């Protein structure tokens, strides 16, 4: 993961990557509305929970998709799609994942042209596209996993600054404290790179599912999810 491809990982994991992520709060907006997240401390706990659940799920599927593309086994991506669907009981979150996946494909087609973008279907799940993007960027599954779990917490942290007016330094300090956890999750996810897709973790997070469904019914919202 280190060495000559590190810059490629930074590019992929940068919040400024124009792939639609800025409009999503990763469940933070409904959690703020329900007063379950109200300050840096509760945000940090939320991010830990999110990293260990949705973050691990995304990381494992990204690592697996990355390995599949590196091995030229693109047919496995379809199996991963089905398995990921089964792990996301919230229809809103399934749709969000597919929407973000589609937006990432659109961006990657220009950023890193590659044949694999053609065969991914209309709206592939985001972690799968992210894994493919990592592979196309010359990255290994571990880097794909790290980008995925970083994405799972960085977006909500930014959303917290916008929604709660939290001190951006304190919020980033929380992200810094999460570093070792994110590294551990990425290392754990990497173990699934070549595993049978049926054995990938699900990282269930019931409150994120329910919050997403509530959020989707709002008349007024700032973030798309």
């Amino acid at each position, binding site marked *: 993961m280190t060495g000559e491809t590190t810059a490629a990982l930074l590019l992929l994991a940068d919040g400024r990557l124009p792939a639609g992520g800025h409009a999503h709060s990763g*469940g933070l907006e409904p*959690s703020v509305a*329900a007063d*379950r*997240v109200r300050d840096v401390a*509760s945000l940090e*706990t*939320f*991010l*830990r*929970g*999110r*990293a*260990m*659940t*949705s973050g691990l799920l995304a990381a494992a599927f990204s690592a697996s998709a990355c390995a599949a593309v590196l091995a030229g086994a693109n047919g496995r991506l379809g199996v991963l799609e*089905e*398995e990921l*669907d*089964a*792990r996301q*009981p*919230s*229809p*809103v979150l*399934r749709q969000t994942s597919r929407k973000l996946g589609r937006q990432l494909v659109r961006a990657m087609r220009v950023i890193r042209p590659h044949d694999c973008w053609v065969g991914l279907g209309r709206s592939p799940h985001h972690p799968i596209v992210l894994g493919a993007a990592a592979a196309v960027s010359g990255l290994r599954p571990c880097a794909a996993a790290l980008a995925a779990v970083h994405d799972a917490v960085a977006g909500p942290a930014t959303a917290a600054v916008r929604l709660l007016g939290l001190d951006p330094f304190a919020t980033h300090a929380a992200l810094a404290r999460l570093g070792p*956890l994110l590294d551990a999750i990425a290392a754990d996810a990497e173990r699934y790179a070549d595993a049978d897709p*049926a054995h990938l*973790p*699900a*990282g*269930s*997070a*019931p*409150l*994120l*599912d*329910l*919050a997403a*469904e*509530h959020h*989707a*019914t709002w008349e007024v919202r700032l973030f798309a999810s």
Partner: protein
Amino acid sequence: MRAAAELAVEAVALRGGAVRSRIATLRSQAPLMLRLTHPKGPEPWTRLGDGAARVCLAAGAAGPIGGDAYALDIQVGDGSTLVLREISASLLLPGPLGGQSTLHTTVRVGAGATLVWLPEPMIAARGCHHLTDVQVDLAAGARLVLREELLLGRHGEQPGDVVARLRIRLDGRPLLHQDLALGPAAVGWNSAAVTGGRRALGSLVVVDPAWADDPPPATLVGDTAAVLPLPGPAALVSALADDALQLRACMDAGLALLTASSEDRRPGVAS
């Protein structure tokens, strides 16, 4: 302690075209005791005298405890109907040597068969270390109701560690795969992403081939409960609550919502 129990049901054709579900295997091993039973409380889909097989699982009053390894195998043969309930809640307790307790359940529901499985809650007592793993294989056209409830600690008690896994395949393809890790060993389990400090969690899956690819729409059942259509002829009621009673109310509301609409659509059934 190790224990393995087995239950198999098969359909027997009666004269006049009716079908009765017969218990083909009923193998208990203490403390996993399987007993034939009469209807206990309201049941979705089935009616008295409809030939369904009814069985109750009576596990030991306390346990499993750390170190116990239980296995349960359930086979519901093509065209048959099984209603499986439980006598009482199970209390997950730490073992003397600090080991993990496990309950592995494998389920197969054949073509046109129905399984209604309504176990009582699992209560994760302080210090417990438990894994429950349920693998369900449904043939095309099988019907399923499956409820799981988990209470985090007895009254006023911090829970131990529980991992609850559920994987349902329909016609060989994944339909629902959940993997819930709760308790002090699971980072962030009590956060606003996972339980938000609620003590009772439940999920209830309904698979009904009558829905084809169009399960009922997402419906909020409360602040922290909803009916979620799955990618297939299935829906999940997912709920968090403050206590067992509230949780059961959500489960029952979701079950009524999902099974009533199905009854209404089935031709030839007088309501």
